[in-house]
């Protein structure tokens, strides 16, 4: 008898919704069969069986929300070869922390338990005092990695002191000065206390994506010393190049957008100025080998940043094809975790809304994020003459711990060169 456990589809996944069962009690499954669909805050994933067996019991009903990782969800009977399912190959990739690699990295029979706590069987209830839980939350400590000293190994408050700070936020732990600020929870008054009476609004419950956005953006904005650099770019040449490219692509079903060209240019600029393609870690500065460009996509209820991997090596048509596919699947929640986790640099474009210029919040652990405004006709001064040109303002938000002002400026110069004279993308490409 083997318990099938709720898989961790990503290193940071804590819980998910059991969206759909593809099997029922009594069904025989064999390796590779899709047995269930799990929905997280970011994506819906199919869960495959690894080996053969008979499903004897479904433990978590279809549609159940907030199912914690490693909770038994079904029971399989069979020979010893029967193993829990493994999630479809989410690689640890450029994950922000040395989180336990999910099932893919583990032998089939091994359960995806957190590495640090071998004493607790996977899926077992984690015993911790209310105060210990609160302290862990305040300090960003992962309770599953803490050894409890209380009765029956219960985690008590004293165990949290000295426990390593959590994977979610490596930075503040390394910096004593910022630690107290990070540790203090924000005291939020109720709307009633702030003069907005109950009944005068509707309350939409926080879903997983909203919670993730809220947590990651708060952590990032509070803990990372960020600064913006803004530059105006003339894009008449870029628009002309796009026209020619799309002429060439006509009939192929692929069309390149300005954003596709921006991403290509950004990728090449990152190869030209590799110092900007970096992440701060307490152990050192991680200089990334490739420009994995995360593109912000608005989806119902939030946003997600699917990634064009190694964009510096891809052709414009490849980038356009991938971007379209990723954006579509993002909107239908069909992205796989490895398609939206990681990334070394982000591009956020609000030009289609007519936004002239804006500064984005850094997407940890990336060192930079580029905010792209609308291309519009503006007066430009050439020599002593006033002319009209298509101009686009871009803002690069930098993590000052890894990308200094001069580095950011250097990158923007390289980027400007490529955008204003797109043919250079061919010459200077990686």
């Amino acid at each position, binding site marked *: 008898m083997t318990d099938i456990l709720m898989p961790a589809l990503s290193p940071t996944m804590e819980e998910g919704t059991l969206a759909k069962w593809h099997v029922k009690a009594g069904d025989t499954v064999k390796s590779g069969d899709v047995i269930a669909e799990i929905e997280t805050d970011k994506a819906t994933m199919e869960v495959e069986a690894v080996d053969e067996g008979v499903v004897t019991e479904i433990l978590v009903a279809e549609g159940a929300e907030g199912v914690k990782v490693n909770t038994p969800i079904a029971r399989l009977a069979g020979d010893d070869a029967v193993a829990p399912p493994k999630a479809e190959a989410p690689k640890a990739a450029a994950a922000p922390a040395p989180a336990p690699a999910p099932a893919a990295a583990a032998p089939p029979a091994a359960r995806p338990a957190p590495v640090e706590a071998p004493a607790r069987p996977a899926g077992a209830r984690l015993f911790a*005092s*209310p*105060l*210990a839980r*609160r*302290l862990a939350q*305040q300090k960003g400590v992962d309770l599953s990695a803490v050894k409890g*000293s*209380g*009765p029956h190994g219960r985690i*008590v*408050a*004293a165990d949290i002191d000295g426990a390593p700070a959590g994977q979610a936020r490596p930075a503040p732990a390394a910096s004593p000065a910022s630690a107290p600020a990070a540790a*203090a929870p924000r005291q939020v008054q109720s709307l009633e206390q702030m003069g907005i009476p109950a009944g005068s609004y509707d309350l939409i419950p926080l879903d997983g994506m909203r919670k993730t956005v809220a947590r990651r953006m708060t952590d990032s904005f509070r803990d990372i010393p960020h600064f913006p650099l803004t530059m105006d770019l003339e894009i008449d040449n870029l628009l002309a190049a796009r026209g020619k490219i799309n002429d060439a692509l006509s009939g192929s079903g692929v069309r390149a957008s300005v954003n596709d060209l921006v991403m290509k240019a950004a990728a090449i600029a990152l190869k030209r100025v590799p110092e900007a393609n970096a992440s701060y870690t307490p152990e050192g500065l991680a200089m990334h080998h490739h420009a994995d460009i995360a593109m912000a996509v608005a989806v119902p209820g939030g946003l997600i940043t699917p990634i064009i991997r190694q964009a510096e090596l891809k052709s414009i048509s490849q980038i356009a094809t991938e971007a379209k596919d990723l954006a579509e699947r993002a909107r239908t929640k069909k992205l796989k975790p490895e398609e939206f986790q990681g990334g070394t640099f982000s591009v956020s474009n609000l030009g289609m809304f007519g936004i002239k210029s804006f500064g984005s919040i850094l997407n940890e652990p990336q060192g930079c994020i580029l905010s792209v405004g609308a291309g519009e006709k503006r007066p430009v001064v050439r020599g002593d003459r006033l002319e009209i040109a298509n101009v686009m303002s871009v803002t690069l938000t930098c993590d000052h711990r890894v990308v200094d002002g001069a580095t950011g400026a250097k990158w923007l110069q390289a980027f400007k060169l490529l955008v204003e004279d797109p043919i250079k993308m061919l010459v200077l490409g990686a």
Partner: protein
Amino acid sequence: MDFDVIVIGAGPGGYVTAIRASQLGLKAAIVEREALGGICLNWGCIPTKALLKSGEVYEQLDHLADYGLSVEKRGFDFSKVIERSRKVATQLSGGVAFLMKKHKIEVIEGAAKLEKGQGAPKVVVALKAGGSRTLQAKHVILATGARARTFPDTGLEPDGERVWTYREALAPKTAPKSLIVIGSGAIGIEFASFYRALGADVTVIEMLPRILPVEDEEVSKAAHKAFEKRGIKFRVPANVKKLTKSKAGVSVEIEVGGKAETIEAEVAIVAVGIVGNVENLGLEALGVKVDRTHVVTDDHGGTGIPGLYAIGDVAGPPWLAHKASHEGVHCIEHIAGLKPPGVKSPIPGCTYAHPQIASVGLTEAQAKEQGREPKVGRFPFKVNGKAIASGETEGFVKTVFDGKTGALIGAHMIGAEVTEMIQGYVLAMTLEATEAELHATVFPHPTMSEAMHEASLDAYGQVIHI
């Protein structure tokens, strides 16, 4: 080897330790020079509660009209009040004897002294019945307790006639008409409360700025007011200069706010603290470290001498029976290799006067000193339904939470039966509860315990019934 463990002293620390030892499969003996159950059971906690109950019931007769009742003639027979108290003590001491037998613990009656032994010290017992026995065990646990502190230089020394300690105060032949209580800790206040209930003219002298000085300041103040209402007089803060005995009784010279005053009474009770029973045990020869009459111990009761441990009053404050039992169990479990949880359990304190006082953890002032930015809640019994129905509206509940983490770090109560209710907070603190768990706990209605819920809600601005 005669025993695995010998416990010296059969008070609530010692006998509980011996029972736990037996449960753990250790062959145990217990040495007691007086009576099983120790001071707690024979001359402390238990017999005083019996007296206080008599006093409370008697005093309640004054208020019968409040309940629509009447009594034709009230009165008391002091010797019967004392007799009842002694009977209760005897009954419970017999209970301990039964427990020792049940757990196959050998009871050795006599006074123990330690000598250098093999591993643990040898225990030489001068037997009550005459003669002596020399015993060797793997482990020896000192649970010899403590006794009242005296100051012979200022006359604060019991003579059994006019100057008492708790011991004489528990079984006098007649009830004093007037009484001076020196010291306003739990012991002093309980005797003041009891004798006042029987009609004595009682004056309490406290050296520190407020009575019940270990309690939260608000509780001290409320207690002061409540006792004054009952007719107890206080001299606070006051220094005792001299106590002299006269034919009629005692005369106590004190200094209050720089002014000298002399108070006369039939009897004085000395309740100015506790000293550990560390004498005549051979501790010096073994090199046991003793600091101000208390054996110095580590977290598990270890004395630094191989095989020798100390628990309870003799190992230091707080001098409370339940603390002794807790330390004893922890010590023997450690000896047995059980690795008891290293977490310090919060220790509640109770004073069984009328009104009662109970507390656990930090006072508001202590929490502030420690930089805990406390969130404090209060709830008075005067708006609690059950309290009003019972005619017990005096007092309040106060909670102290850590402002940063929300952990409950202190609770302070004064009022009827609060000593029975404090345990709710003690459990909450032992489980490391935060305000969230206390707020989410359902308290039965109607009970006085609802005030505990309200006081924790009040700390977070969510109190309902005020």
